[in-house]
């Protein structure tokens, strides 16, 4: 019973990656087996996050024509049909009348829309019933313990959560000692007995536990994430949700006993009054509408339409679907316009392969406008699964979803430019850590900080990295077969196995920000929240390797000596493209080609910088943004991402996608058995969904899934950020990435996957993999095949299945 409760509530704990490799993730990833509408609220558990914007916002979008009339009608039709099918009504024309009525209801300007979200009435925990200041204490103490524990854990001094907190708590007094002594090793039994002692009835156990753990969802999520994607074997021993719950329950029991609360159980739910209120509005509207209608219609409305259960949440979902449809229909229309004749590949001397990231899209357009250079989109890790040992920890340069991948080890050379810098930094940091030495340290060195203050405030540019990094992969007999397969699949996916330009640049991307703890959220999501530089470098190294090329011949891919692969890095903050680890000893022709490419790219970058500068809030030189330590919005990252287009570039080349679409190249003719599409579905689609849903939920429910205001963030080194003095570890994206002066700048739309492939092939792949099937069926993403006009929405799926 208790076990099931814990399993149930732990689904709702979001995955939180440590901020130094912050991978975007769907906070409700464990709930995708339910429809998104149900996963975001569970009345039985008292769980409710807001998955949509407020009605007022949608109505304003509608007035501004951001939501099209047709899309709204379509969305309402879908909803009404679904409702009637569920309710087993089938009078002819019933749907039409109801939908037009609902349309009038939703677009009626006189209807009162709630200006603020109704606050969900969460059940009160026991400590919350005591006065505010007393509540703070257990709440803060536990957070302090979670923080201390994790720091101890990472240094290896303490591994077990229980042996960490129990002796500490025992020292607080007799009351504490009594409770702690009664605890056993069995966590489930502990929880059961503590719940019992608290006097919480069994039917509210789940709700109570969820409510309790929800206060520490950041810490619990961090532990959960580390346990699921362990970096070291020790990570598997991290504290579990049960252990945190036991800690909380102990605090509750002690404060209950200490305060002698007479009636401990005020733990109950209150119904959301807004729900019923909204329905009454609808009924009243129907009655008013009846006056101008014929008898039959009136009778119909009274019997059917009024019975339609219309809640605020449902109306919001209709609006949300409508705004998504508006975007999707527009996108489809522009994509299906007859395109300009594709330039023959022969006169394209060079090609560049970019990450699928939405920020690459604008850059690719800029490059294509400047010169006839082919550009391709490919997931930024280029199919390589390897790890790089850093100074502190190992960086896994691929999506954490690929848990079964066994990473190849790559080496990194870091040659510091100034060798004494590290020694000085070490001397200062260790003398800061002592008890007696910092006093005179501030005296002796403090004055020089004034110079740094002046320079950093007045001249933000001019700080250069102090290390040169170069990456190497040792290609040996053991891993060569593996690498050849990777190279082959990359070339096949890019349709380059037969014919290709002589110069191909693999372009990873990185972000360059100063003083920004969220730097890694701007880096390449497919590279596990790291810069994609090393992936590009190593991919080129593999493809240029003579042994690999020989082996590739066996697979029918012949790379001649003249063909060259060079790495490039796209800096998404400053919109510059740099060329790391340049190869020497090249032929004159090759050098000429490289020079030409670089010149073209440079020009394209300039164009792109001009565009970008004007599109950001408070226009400012990109370079200054990147280098200024007071800049909270260095770049907007993947803002407004809403679609993933899988298909050849020729289809999308003519369209300005406004940096809103992920682009993955795919040629259905090259992929006879569908294996390439399958790997795209399992990697890039899910990665794009994770990114998209992180932005989505951080915007719609910023309180629960956003990480709050950057100005008050307090960093826990190597772990994450807290808000202010001491708080939960923050989940999701900060306010400044999504809002600007109280205005929302991200429009939350669920991911629209648009594929240039036959419908049957897509259906086959989706049916094969359970998570994909769940994502599509439960409306987490929308998948549509370009060749087939039939929308493969979840509704259809439900009909057929």
């Amino acid at each position, binding site marked *: 019973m208790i076990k099931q409760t814990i399993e149930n509530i732990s689904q709702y704990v979001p995955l939180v990656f440590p901020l130094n490799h912050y991978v975007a993730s769907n906070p409700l990833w464990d709930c995708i087996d339910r429809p998104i509408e149900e996963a975001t609220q569970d009345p039985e558990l008292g769980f409710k996050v807001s998955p949509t914007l407020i009605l007022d916002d949608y109505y304003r979008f509608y007035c501004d024509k951001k939501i099209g009339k047709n899309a709204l009608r379509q969305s309402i039709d879908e909803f009404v049909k679904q409702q009637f099918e569920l309710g087993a009504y089938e009078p002819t024309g019933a749907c039409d009348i109801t939908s037009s009525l609902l349309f009038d209801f939703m677009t009626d300007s006189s209807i009162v829309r709630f200006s603020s979200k109704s606050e969900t009435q969460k059940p009160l925990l026991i400590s919350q019933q005591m006065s505010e200041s007393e509540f703070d204490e257990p709440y803060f103490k536990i957070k302090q313990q979670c923080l201390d524990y994790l720091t101890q854990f990472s240094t290896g001094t303490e591994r077990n959560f229980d042996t960490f907190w129990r002796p500490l708590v025992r020292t607080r007094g007799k009351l504490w000692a009594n409770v702690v002594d009664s605890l056993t090793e069995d966590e489930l039994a502990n929880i059961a007995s503590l719940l019992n002692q608290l006097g919480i009835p069994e039917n509210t156990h789940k709700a109570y536990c969820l409510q309790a753990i929800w206060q520490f969802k950041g810490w619990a999520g961090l532990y959960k994430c580390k346990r699921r994607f362990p970096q070291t074997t020790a990570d598997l021993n991290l504290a579990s949700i049960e252990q945190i719950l036991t800690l909380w329950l102990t605090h509750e029991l002690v404060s209950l006993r200490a305060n002698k609360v007479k009636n401990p159980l005020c733990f109950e739910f209150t119904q959301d009054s807004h729900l019923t209120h909204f329905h009454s509005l609808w009924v009243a509207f129907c009655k008013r509408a009846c006056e101008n209608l014929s008898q039959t219609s009136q009778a119909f409305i009274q019997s059917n339409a009024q019975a339609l259960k219309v809640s605020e949440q449902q109306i919001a979902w209709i609006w949300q679907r409508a705004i998504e449809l508006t975007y999707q229909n527009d996108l489809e229309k522009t994509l299906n316009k007859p395109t300009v004749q594709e330039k023959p590949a022969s006169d394209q001397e060079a090609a560049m392969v970019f990450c699928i990231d939405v920020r690459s899209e604008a850059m690719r357009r800029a490059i294509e406008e400047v010169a006839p250079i082919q550009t391709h989109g490919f997931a930024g890790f280029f199919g390589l699964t390897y790890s790089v040992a850093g100074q502190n920890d190992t960086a896994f340069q691929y999506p954490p979803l690929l848990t079964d991948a066994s990473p190849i080890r790559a080496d990194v050379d870091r040659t510091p430019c100034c060798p004494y810098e590290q020694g000085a930094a070490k001397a200062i940091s260790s003398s800061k850590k002592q008890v007696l030495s910092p006093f005179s340290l501030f005296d*002796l060195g403090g004055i020089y900080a004034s110079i740094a203050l002046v320079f950093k405030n*007045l001249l933000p540019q001019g700080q250069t990295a102090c290390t040169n990094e170069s990456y190497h992969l040792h290609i040996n007999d053991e891993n060569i077969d593996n690498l050849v397969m990777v190279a082959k699949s990359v070339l096949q996916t890019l349709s380059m196995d037969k014919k290709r330009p002589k110069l191909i640049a693999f372009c990873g991307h990185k972000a360059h920000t100063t003083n920004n703890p969220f730097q890694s959220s701007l880096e390449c999501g497919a590279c596990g929240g790291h810069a994609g530089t090393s992936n590009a470098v190593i991919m080129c190294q593999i493809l240029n390797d003579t042994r690999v090329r020989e082996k590739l011949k066996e697979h029918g891919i012949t790379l001649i000596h003249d063909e060259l692969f060079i790495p490039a890095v796209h800096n998404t903050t400053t919109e510059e493209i740099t060329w790391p680890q340049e190869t020497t000893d090249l032929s004159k022709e090759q050098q000429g080609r490289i020079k030409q490419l670089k010149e073209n790219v440079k020009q394209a970058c300039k164009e792109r910088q001009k565009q970008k500068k004007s599109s950001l809030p408070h226009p400012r030189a990109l370079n200054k943004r990147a280098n200024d330590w007071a800049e909270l919005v260095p770049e907007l990252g993947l803002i407004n991402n809403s679609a993933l287009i899988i298909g050849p570039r020729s289809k999308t080349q003519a369209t300005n996608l406004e940096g809103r679409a992920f682009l993955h190249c795919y040629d259905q003719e090259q992929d006879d058995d569908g294996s390439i599409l399958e790997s795209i579905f399992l990697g890039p689609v899910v990665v794009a969904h994770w990114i998209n849903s992180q932005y989505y939920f951080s915007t719609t429910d910023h309180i629960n899934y956003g990480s709050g205001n950057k100005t008050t963030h307090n960093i826990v080194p190597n772990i994450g950020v807290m808000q202010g003095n001491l708080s939960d570890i923050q989940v999701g994206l900060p306010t400044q990435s999504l809002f600007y002066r109280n205005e929302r700048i991200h429009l939350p739309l669920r991911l629209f996957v648009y594929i240039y492939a036959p419908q049957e092939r897509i259906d086959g792949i989706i049916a094969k993999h359970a998570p994909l099937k769940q994502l599509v069926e439960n409306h987490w993403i929308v998948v549509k095949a370009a060749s087939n006009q039939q929308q493969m929405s979840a509704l259809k799926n439900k009909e057929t299945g």
Partner: protein
Amino acid sequence: MLITCKTIVNLLHQLDLKQITMTIPILDYTILPIGLTLKFSLDNLSLIMLCFVGFIGSMVLLFAWRYMKHDIHRYRFHFQLVCLIFSVFLLVLSGNLLTAFIAWQLIGASLYVLLNHYHYHPIANKSAKKKFIINRIGDLCFLTAVVLCIATYQSTDFSLLAAPSSTNATILGLIFIAVMTKSAQFPFHIWLIDTMEAPTPVSAIMHAGVINAGGFLLTRLGSYYLEFTSLMLIIFCIGITTALLGQLLAQYENDTKKRLAYSTMGQMGFMILQCGLGAFSSAIFHLIAHGFYKAYLFFNAGSTLNKTTYAKTPNKILLPLIMTALIVFVAFFASTQLAIKTIDSPILVVFIAITLFTILRSGASCLKSLCILSLVSFVILFVYLMAIGGLSDTLQIDGHFTLKHEVITIMISIIALALLGIVYYRRKSPYIRRALIEKCSIEAQYRHFILNPTRKVGDVLIRGLMPLNKPLKLLIAAIVVALLATQNLFVMMALCILVLLIANRAARLKSIIFNIVIANLMIIAIVWASASPIAPKLAVYQLVTFASLLLGLALLFIPRNLGKTPVIKQNTLPWGHFYASVILFFLIGVPTTPSFVTELMLFLDLVTQSPFYLVLFSMIMLLLSLVVLHTLQTYFFNPSKIEHFNRPISPVVHLSSIVIIVFNLMVGIHPSLLFNLIQY
């Protein structure tokens, strides 16, 4: 390097301002028989401090200008920041105790407002309140000192404190308590750690600038403190306790900002310690250097996410030790040869040696790097010594502490104890450390012994009064009136305290306001009953201004219907809330408000009567500010809390609120405007 040092020294030598003073008649308190004036003076110390505060202030403003770009209320924030910086300027330029006190309070008030920038955030409110209340304790001590000075000398000039009398000792002691609250010294440090809920620039200016006010004030009065050896000893002990405790606690914090906060606490302790040794120029230098460093660290706090942990190098002890000794010896020898007056306190030299030793030990991986590091350290130390020498010559305040050997023994014993403690700490498992920190938590003791009992008394009173029926309540009211009629100061004050205790625990806004009104009326009665020659006039003055504020509050309370309720943006304070907050804030005795005038006058009167009344009245003022801040936090700062004020305000109410606020400000700054009108 040497040339720069020489220029620094020369510059400091040339800096020889004769004290420029000016008296400003705008703020006059001529209503009293004795003359109370504001006095500003500019001498070397204030000039150096002006430069420092100006530099840090402009850096923070520059940073904040870009940092807060996304914030819809950024202009308000910048304005408040400028206000704070100007209050610090005022303190630096103050020429007598009264001016210093007024600046002192203005700093506290503007910092309170800044810390509440995210006013809808309950934790921010709470920490700001805690800071304000603790500072209020210091403020009241400072006020007592000022009043004592006036009562004794009829003036508040700093120079009056030169005589080694017991009154002066009391005055200086009271001022030191104020310094302790402002500079987060040992028992009062608890507010510092919690104030992280404000934007980073606020933390930067607070930790780099404002918190140094205590050290500055001690230096300003340095030559007078030197007369009282026992006082210096206390200062020294408080300083060293704070320093060690702060640094010790900083070791066990895992997040960046709290670690920085504890480090500030430790550094402030060190500054006070330097003052306690009579090395005032060192303290000023420390204050400046620490300010630069801390501002830098706070600005840079966002980049501490990826903290590199350095591999441990084998611990060498002997060679670094020899090098340290050599560096220190050569540096001091060279400076004496150059006839530069440097640090003459062995304790400070020990601290320098410890730092150098740690740097050399951990930074030097080989002999070559050890040599380079030693050379760099030597140059830095030499520059420091020369700068200190120059500063000392310019300021001319350093004293020779006569009880040095006594202090040294005390210090050595404390350090030994602390070191033992550290060794003990290190050996034990981490949870023991946290347990010890929890046990040593001063805050828990405050809560347990002071806060909770007062709350309990309030609760008991409320619970006791609740079930009474009307006649009984009337009877009690009659008794209260009768007691008031006796004009007994003690009875009135005690009743006032009880009323405020009730207000502190009242559950509804109306009853809180009602109790505040009652308490204020009682204060007016106390003023009336006081023995001061201008008591009746003062009472009328207080009554008029209080009535005007009450009128303003009532206007805001009147129910009105002006159409649709506007959309509440959580981070925007509606006008109704804003006016109400300002009006309530005017009640608690912040300078430039009428309540301050009353408070000052009453203090002046009570100081001649008995210290007991003074304490009681201080308690009243403290409780009043507690209640008012509590009300602001619970009902006015969070727009979603109370729907009443969310309605739009009619232009009439706007106008009248502004008129009332301006009137109160004018009368508060220039009381004779109203006083001359009152005929008695």
